[in-house]
């Protein structure tokens, strides 16, 4: 006996109108009675008259909502790391205890972010409405990187010697992972589009998802580097 057995009791076929099913008993509606024949055909006709083929491609918005919700969770991971950074900062007598973030990490993230932004620009030509995001991402990134490189030039940091190095490394790596994931998503979406199997609705939904992810990356990236920049300067 499994949970997807066919209904064990078939209610008698009722003659009610499929378009406006009235409750079968005064007290209880039953939404599972089999309706066949003329009523259903009538319903379908009426539907066809009303709405043509109808909107059967409403999944894009659900996907966007889902990705947004998931990004909230990922954002909390990031915020918990920021909280850890802040907690260690506040509870530490000296800050920063030593060094500053590694520039190789920084460089890899910049490459990831810029590549992602570039891809997004390419996609933006095909799908409307996402043109501003990559430009903002690139500009924002450029400013912060420049500021950071200027301030932190010549110092390096070991991730395993102090908690400071650890949390800085974890934050930067995390943002790197976010950027890499967004990049992969961008490439994937682009590739799918090139296959030509997607409707314009689907392309728009994918574009919205990708843009959302990039805004997220840009947001976390900015917060991280401002934080580390301020943190490293406050000694």
């Amino acid at each position, binding site marked *: 006996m499994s*949970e997807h057995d066919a209904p064990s009791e078939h209610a008698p076929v009722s003659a009610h109108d499929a378009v406006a099913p009235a409750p079968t008993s005064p007290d209880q509606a039953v939404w599972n009675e089999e309706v066949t024949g003329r009523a259903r055909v009538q319903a379908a006709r009426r539907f066809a008259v009303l709405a043509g083929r109808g909107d059967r491609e409403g999944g894009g918005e659900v996907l966007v909502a889902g990705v947004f919700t998931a990004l909230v969770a990922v954002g909390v991971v990031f915020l918990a790391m920021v909280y850890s950074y802040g907690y260690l900062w506040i509870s530490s007598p000296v800050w920063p205890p030593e060094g500053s973030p590694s520039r190789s990490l920084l460089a890899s993230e910049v490459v990831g972010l810029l590549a992602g932004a570039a891809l997004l620009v390419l996609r933006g030509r095909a799908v409307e409405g996402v043109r501003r995001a990559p430009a903002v991402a690139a500009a924002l990134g450029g400013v912060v990187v420049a500021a950071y490189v200027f301030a932190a030039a010549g110092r390096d940091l070991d991730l395993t010697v102090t908690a400071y190095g650890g949390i800085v490394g974890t934050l930067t790596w995390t943002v790197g992972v976010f950027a890499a994931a967004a990049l992969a998503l961008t490439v994937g979406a682009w590739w799918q589009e090139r296959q030509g199997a997607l409707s314009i609705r689907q392309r728009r939904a994918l574009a919205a998802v990708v843009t959302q992810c990039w805004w997220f990356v840009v947001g976390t990236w900015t917060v991280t580097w401002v934080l580390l920049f301020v943190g490293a300067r406050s000694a």
Partner: protein
Amino acid sequence: MTEVLAPPRRTVHQALDDAWSSPPGLLGFLSAVNHKQIGLRFVWTAVAFLFVGGIEALLVRVQLARAENDVLSPETYNQLFTMHGTTMMFLFAVPILEGLAMYLTPLQIGTRDMPFPRLNAFGYWCYLFGGVLLNWSLVSGSVPDGGWFAYTPLSGPEFSPSRALDFWLIGITLVEIAGILGAVELIVLLLKQRAPGMNLARIPLFCWSMLVMATMMLIAFPVVLTASLLLELERKVGAPFYDAAAGGNPLLWQHLFWIFGHPEVYIMLTPATGIVSAVVAAHTGRRIVAYPLVVAALISVGIASFGLWVHHMFTVGLPQVVLGLFAVASFAIAIPSGVQIFAWIATIWEGVPRWRTPMWFVMGFIVTFVLGGFTGVMVASPPFDGQAHDSYFVVAHFHYVLIGGVVFPIFAGLHHWFPTFTGRLPNERVGRASCGVQLVGFHITFFPQHLLGLQGMARRVYTYAEDLGWDALNLVSTAGSFVFGAGVTLFIGNLAWARRRGPRSPRDPWTADTLEWSTTAPPPSYNFVDQPVVSGRSPQWDRQAPAFDAQTLEALAALAHPHRGRREVVRTSVFDARPEAIFSLPGPSVLPLCAALALSVALTGVLVDWWPLAIGGAAGFGWALVAWLNGNGAHR
């Protein structure tokens, strides 16, 4: 076009079932994505873990039955209480509630499945593999022994050098991933897939509670995920986040853990109150009174629970002002809890209670939970907490809250919804008897622990001295625990019996008010032939006919016939549930299983420090994700 208009050749039931049912055989089992199958897998897997955790608890009680007992070595004892707490929190309570949510919320809001069915399946496999991995430690011999809270530095690389804590961290991480994904699903489901007409003021309280639970999970679980990640980095890579000697801070773990840990309590309690609301309404024939107040209470508990974590840390030497603030905030949570308690009392008062098993569990719940609430207020008072914290008083307190407040409602719910799970009715007399046995056993077990705690018995001690006079109460407690265990076994045994041999249930055995009772028991793979339309808070009781506007008609007509064999559902607006569009869901696939398996393999590679395995698993995970996303394209 034409196929929409063509008269169906087979019955609509068959056509819908073709579109929605899982394929037969082993492959079908492994590729299933239907919310009812996945939901029940969560439920029954969690019940299995309940027995694992229960046996661990009984062993702990046997060791404590008398002073200087030597049934268990201190090592085994520490492992058992760690695994008991971890299993009950992470592998039983939260997953079973998630499972109930997955099975019931789509039915209660009148839709055919959850918005991301494959993610659902992926979540289940992550949970299963996480649970198995965690318990595999029992076989491998390095069993976690740092408590379910794994305080640093005891859980750090220096003081727990074996792999035990890695099992714990990685097992938990997999289970948390499952929780987060489930939360994403539930939120989108409850906001975007409600039946036309089910505006925010008509959502069943059970679904409201699940929405609040999911939102809390979405915010709380990533925090413990982060804490675990940092600890795993400390253990494997050597980044000293929690090591005071290297600039870290062991209290950081406590903060992160309790920022998760306190909401975790309400993540279990909130859906439990939702179950109680559903049961009370169904078994008194009256919908829950003061609905807006109850919803407000649910939401405010959800928000407030994120501001109380410090009351688990009253003894770490924080400033008095902080303690005072958190104490008063913790007291205040009694108000929303009180609102709910009195809403149920008032509903029972105004309704006509029918005393079947679920109602007895609810009565047991109210009395026990109120007592747990009182001790909760007591331990929220920092001066008294100085005595109670980490003593058996607290052990008693949270078992009153978690068993009285969560397990009893879960059992009420299992009995109540068993007909819709299986189409059969559990035995009433056995159900009621099991409830009685559990209540008696529970209070005999845990009431004495309040007294022991104030006599000075600390938590997590594997033994105590003979001259302290604690033997009698401990023996009583141990005896009670076996009575309680027998009650639980009787209850589950009743369900196991009824699953095959119970009498067939009518469609709606309790004359309840929500939509899951409007379809067959058990529901068909597609839940409803016709898209339900809702005109009030209790669709099964409302006499007013639903209103059909043009959009609703459109959605109804479109769904009335499976289009190209797709799995179609209605998307509705967030606030007033106007139909917006129809979309189709992806069907069965083994890729979620592959992805979860690969992820587990990768994490196992990390666990055993065998990097080729970790990298291979990660690569497999990447492949599975690409294949999954590439082949999907179903969210049209």
